[in-house]
C-alpha cells in the first residue's frame, strides 16, 4: 500500500485513549507478576473461570485480523455471501464442538491437539502434527503482523517495512511483559472495545448511505449488483458458476471441512474452553461464544459493504474489478473510519483494532513457542534437560518466530484479499487434521501409521490443488479453490487412512481408553449440573437449540 494515500488523522486524544488501554492491560500483567494476589490466581488458574468469561475469550481469540479486516474486505468484495463465514462457517461447528467434542476433550483430560495425536497415534503423527501446526502459526502470525503494520503505517506514515519491524518489536515487548495474565484480560476487554468502536461505525455508515434500504439500492447499482445482497447461492464467493455446486461447495467445503476443522481442533480456541470450571461450563463456552458470533458480521461485513459504495477510492477500485488505485479491499474498514469517525471515537476504533491484532499475533507466537519448545525440541531434539533450559529455548524461539513472522507478513502483503490467503492455509493444515481427528476418535481400529500417513497425504493433496489452481489448470475465482482443496484433502485423508489401517496393526484397546469414543466410560462424558449450575438458562442443549434456531432464521432472512 502506498503510504501517501491512506492516512488516519489521529490527534493527541486518540493516542491518550490508545495509551490508556495498553497501560491497563500491561499494568495488570505487571501487578500479577509482582504481587501474587489470590484473586489474580483465581482468575488465571483457569479452573475457576465462569462460562461467560471463557465464552467471550473463546470468540475473542478468533476476533482478530481474520475476522475484522478479512471479513470487512470480503464484505466489500462479495457482499452478503460473506455472512456464510459466520452462519455456515462457524456457528454450526461451535455447536458441534459443544455437543459432541467438548465432553470428550474435557472428560478425557487431553490438554492439547498435539497431545491427543501423541497418545492416540504415537510419535510420528505427533511430529507431523507439531511441525505443520508450528508452520501454520508462523504463517498466520504474519497475517496479524501485516495488519498491525498497516495500522502503524496509516497512523504514522512510516514505510510498510519499517512499520512491520516496529509492530513486531511492540508484540515482542507485549508478550514478554504482559504474559498470560494480560492475555486473558485483554481478550475479554478487547471484545467490548471493538464492539464500542464498530457498532457506531456501522450505524453512522448506514445513516450516511440512507439506511438499509439506501445501502441495498446503492449496492444493486454498483458493480457487484443485486446478487451481493443475498447470501445464497454465493457463486461469486465460491467461484462456481453452477448454483448447485456453489451451495455444495459452501456447505461441504467451508461449512463442514474448513470450519469444523478450524473450530474443533484449533489449539488456541479449544484451550479457552478447557479453562472452564466444570464440564457443564466447558460445554457452554463455545455455545456462549456462538451468540456474539451470530451478530458480529453485522458490525464487520456491513461496514465493508458500506465502504464499497460510499468511500471514493473503494468505489473506484471495485468498479475497476479490484485493480488500480492505491487501495485494496483490506483497507475498506480503515477508509470508512477515516471518512466517518471524529477524533476521540477514532482513537477508540484504533485501540480496538490494535488490541485485537496484537492479541492475535501474541497468541500465534506463544502457541508456536509452546509447541516448538515442548512438542518438538524437548521430545525429539534435545531431551532430558532441566526446565530452565527449555524456558531459555522458549525465549530464543519467541524472538526467532517474531522475526520469521516479518517475512511471512511480506507473503501476506501480496494478497489483495487476506481471506483468500487464510482459507488457503486452513485448507492445507486444518482440513486433513480434522479428518484424522474425527476418524481416530470414533474408529478404534485406526492405526498409528494411518494417523500420520493420512495427515501427510491430506496436506499434500490440498497443496496439489492449490498448485493446479495457481497454474490455471483449474480455474476457480474467489475462495472456491480453497473450498475444493479442503474437500479433497478431507476425502483423501479419510480414504488413505482407511486403506492404511487395513494393512497395518491397530493399537491394543487398553491403550485407547479415554481417547476413542466407544472405549470411554459414559460417565466421563456426561454433564452433571449441580448447585448454581442447575438453573434452566445454563442448560447446554437449550442454549444450543436457541442458537440453532437463530442461525436458521438469519439464513432465511438474508436468503
Amino acid at each position: 500500500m502506498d503510504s501517501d494515500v491512506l492516512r488516519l488523522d489521529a490527534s493527541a486524544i486518540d493516542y491518550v485513549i490508545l495509551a490508556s488501554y495498553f497501560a491497563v492491560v500491561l499494568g495488570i500483567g505487571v501487578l500479577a507478576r509482582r504481587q501474587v494476589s489470590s484473586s489474580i490466581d483465581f482468575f488465571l488458574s483457569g479452573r475457576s473461570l465462569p462460562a461467560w468469561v471463557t465464552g467471550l475469550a473463546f470468540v475473542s481469540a478468533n476476533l482478530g485480523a481474520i475476522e475484522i479486516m478479512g471479513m470487512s474486505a470480503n464484505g466489500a468484495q462479495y457482499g452478503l455471501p460473506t455472512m456464510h463465514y459466520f452462519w455456515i462457517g462457524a456457528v454450526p461447528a461451535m455447536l458441534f464442538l459443544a455437543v459432541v467434542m467438548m465432553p470428550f476433550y474435557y472428560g478425557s483430560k487431553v490438554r492439547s491437539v498435539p497431545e491427543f495425536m501423541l497418545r492416540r497415534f504415537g510419535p510420528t503423527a505427533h511430529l507431523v502434527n507439531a511441525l505443520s501446526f508450528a508452520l501454520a502459526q508462523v504463517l498466520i502470525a504474519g497475517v496479524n503482523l501485516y495488519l498491525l503494520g498497516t495500522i502503524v503505517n496509516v497512523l504514522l506514515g512510516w514505510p510498510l517495512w519499517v512499520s512491520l519491524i516496529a509492530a513486531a518489536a511492540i508484540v515482542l515487548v507485549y508478550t514478554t511483559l504482559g504474559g498470560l495474565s494480560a492475555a486473558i484480560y485483554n481478550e475479554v476487554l478487547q471484545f467490548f472495545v471493538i464492539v464500542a468502536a464498530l457498532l457506531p461505525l456501522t450505524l453512522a455508515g448506514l445513516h450516511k448511505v440512507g439506511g438499509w434500504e439506501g445501502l441495498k439500492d446503492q449496492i444493486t447499482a454498483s458493480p457487484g449488483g443485486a446478487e451481493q445482497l443475498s447470501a445464497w447461492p454465493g457463486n461469486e464467493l465460491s467461484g462456481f458458476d453452477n448454483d448447485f455446486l456453489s451451495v455444495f461447495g459452501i456447505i461441504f467445503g467451508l461449512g463442514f471441512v474448513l470450519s469444523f476443522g478450524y473450530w474443533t481442533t484449533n489449539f488456541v480456541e479449544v484451550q479457552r474452553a478447557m479453562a472452564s470450571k466444570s464440564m457443564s461450563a466447558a460445554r457452554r463456552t463455545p455455545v456462549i461464544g456462538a451468540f456474539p458470533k451470530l451478530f458480529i458480521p453485522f458490525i464487520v461485513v456491513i461496514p465493508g459493504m458500506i465502504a464499497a459504495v460510499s468511500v471514493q477510492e473503494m468505489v473506484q477500485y471495485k468498479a475497476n474489478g479490484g485493480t488500480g488505485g492505491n487501495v485494496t479491499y483490506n483497507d475498506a474498514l480503515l477508509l470508512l473510519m477515516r471518512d466517518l469517525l471524529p477524533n476521540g471515537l477514532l482513537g477508540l476504533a484504533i485501540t480496538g483494532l490494535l488490541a485485537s491484532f496484537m492479541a492475535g499475533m501474541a497468541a500465534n507466537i506463544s502457541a508456536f513457542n509452546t509447541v516448538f519448545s515442548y512438542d518438538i525440541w524437548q521430545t525429539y531434539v534435545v531431551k532430558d534437560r532441566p526446565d530452565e533450559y527449555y524456558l531459555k529455548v522458549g525465549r530464543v524461539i519467541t524472538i526467532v518466530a517474531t522475526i520469521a513472522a516479518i517475512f511471512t507478513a511480506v507473503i501476506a502483503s501480496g494478497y489483495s484479499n487476506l481471506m483468500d490467503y487464510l482459507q488457503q492455509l486452513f485448507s492445507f493444515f486444518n482440513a486433513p487434521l480434522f479428518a484424522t481427528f474425527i476418524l481416530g476418535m470414533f474408529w478404534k481400529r485406526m492405526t498409528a501409521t494411518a494417523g500420520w500417513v493420512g495427515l501427510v497425504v491430506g496436506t499434500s493433496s490440498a497443496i496439489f490443488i492449490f498448485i493446479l489452481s495457481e497454474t490455471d489448470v483449474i480455474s476457480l475465482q474467489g475462495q472456491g479453490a480453497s473450498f475444493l482443496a479442503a474437500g479433497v484433502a478431507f476425502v483423501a485423508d479419510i480414504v488413505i487412512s482407511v486403506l492404511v489401517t487395513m494393512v497395518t496393526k491397530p493399537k491394543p484397546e487398553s491403550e485407547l481408553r479415554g481417547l476413542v469414543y466407544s472405549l470411554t466410560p459414559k460417565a466421563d462424558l456426561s454433564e452433571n449440573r449441580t448447585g448454581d449450575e442447575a438453573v434452566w438458562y445454563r442448560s447446554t442443549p437449550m442454549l444450543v437449540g436457541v442458537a440453532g434456531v437463530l442461525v436458521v432464521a438469519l439464513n432465511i432472512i438474508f436468503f
Partner: protein
Amino acid sequence: MAETPEPTEKTTTAGAFDIRTIIGGLMGIYGVILLVMGLWFTDASEIDRADGVNLNTRVSIGLLVFAAVMLAWVFLRPLRVPVEQDDSERPE
C-alpha cells in the same frame, strides 16, 4: 504459602481485579473522554462528515450506561474468591 485446608473456606471480594470492574472502569473512562470531546472539542467538519450526527456524544452516553450496568453488577453480586487457595482445596 498454603495452610492446612480448613472446613469452611475463607473468602474475600475480588475487588479491582474482578474483570467486570476492569471492563466497567475502562468503558467509563472512555465514556467520559468521549463526552468531553463531544461537548467541547468536536468541530463542525467532523459532525458534517458523519452526516450531522455528533458521534462522540452519542457513543459516550452508550459507554457510560454500559459502564454503570457493569459496575452495578459487581456491586450487587460481588465475586467471592478463596483467600488462600491451594490445589487441595479447589472448589471442584
